[in-house]
């Protein structure tokens, strides 16, 4: 029954963006959990476990949506060949 669903520990849904699961994978797992829960083919205990995992996933998805901050930058090639990043005004204006 539940064994075919690989549950990664909730601790892995941390704030560490380096090990962040891609959004599409979170959504896929969430859909699996919802379908499992709706099928009713599980014990009450398992339902509650799945529910909290599902809620944790929705929270992580929301966090990923919220964490993106409005930012537009331009990369400038320096005379020595290196590249620096500078903020960039929109609508066709280039920084000097």
């Amino acid at each position, binding site marked *: 029954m539940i064994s075919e669903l690989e549950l990664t520990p909730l601790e892995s849904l941390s704030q560490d963006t380096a090990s962040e699961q891609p959004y599409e994978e979170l959504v896929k797992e969430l859909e699996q959990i919802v379908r499992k829960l709706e099928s009713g083919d599980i014990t009450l205990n398992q339902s509650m476990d799945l529910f909290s995992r599902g*809620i944790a996933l929705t929270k992580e998805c929301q966090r990923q*949506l919220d964490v993106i901050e409005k930012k*537009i930058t331009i990369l400038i090639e320096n005379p020595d060949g290196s590249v620096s990043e500078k903020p960039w005004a929109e609508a066709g204006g280039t920084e000097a």
Partner: protein
Amino acid sequence: MTEQQPVTVSWLNRYVATLLERDPFLSTVRVRGELSNCKLYTSGHLYFMLKDEQASVSCVMFRREAAKLRFRPVDGTRVILTARATLYDRDGKFQLYVSEMAADGIGDLFLAFEQLKQRLAAEGLFDEKHKKPLPVLPARIGVVTSPSGAVIRDIINVLGRRYPQFSLQLYPVPVQGEGAGGKIATAIRRLNERKEVDVMIVGRGGGSIEDLWAFNEEVVARAVYESEIPVISAVGHETDFTICDFVADRRAPTPSAAAELAMPVRSDLEDALRMQRNRLVHALRNRARIAEERLNRLTQNRIFREPYLLIEKRQADLDRIRERQQQALEKRLTSARSNMQLLTGKLDSLSPLKVLSRGYGLVTDPLNGRPLTTVTRIRTGEQVRVFLSDGNLDCTVNQITARSDNS
């Protein structure tokens, strides 16, 4: 009349060579024909024959001019040459020194495009299975294009409408002209080195085949192919296709379409999340309700409401068992009794006393006291004892008569 003095070969060749050099038509002649026997030497000089149906002429294009060719000269290619006709002094060979070569019938650039496209396709650079999927929610989008112009402006506008908090990193490049291809390739590689974007858009606005040419260059194709960051190509208008478009992981017909491919609509994602959350809650609620109903159904059972019924039932069972046990016992007793009577009756009828009471006597052998069953065992004059039912007689045998079977 004097004969012409014989001339030397050197003189003759020089004479003809000079004739050719002085002829204005032959110093810059344009010739149309088909390439054959093309040989490109390591020196960079190109040697070939130019032919038509009936004739051919030997040609050479030196390195300086050959390097400017935009397409590869291969046998069978139809061309128009600009050349200088010469005679090589040493061997009198007539040759064309070619300064320009243009594709005949179709443009140079188109020919070059076709050649490169075939070559890269054969190498597998356009293969579907090499293409990567685009991330659903990129934290940062890279753009390789001109910093001025409509392209970057359109991309920023569309991104802003779909996801107001989007993050973008622009790597500005020239999108046409000398060296543009190299700069575009460098930009793609640098974005890969920095690893700060999850997807990139590479493109420019519309234009002629010459204008778009940078995106047909091999360096750009290779940079796109090797990019680990997914590349969306948006070059020119809907109907323009460049090599960059074929190699990219996705092709967009316009910069706005590229922005749509790159970034999702935030409210769509949040609506979907909300729906999943609702489904979770409803599903759990349902599951709990089912469990509760089941519990109720069970506790409604008579056993829970009237538990003593269980005991009463057990007691009734016990009584029934006892009764049956009793009955079984009595039955056995009765049958044992009747059996006994039967046996007693039989025994009685078999009793010798009964026989004696009917008038029979038991005669015994005087020697051993055992019953006398045959006349051969006794002689006349011997004594025998006869038992009757109420006593016995001591008798003497007077006469013995054996009974034969015939009497």
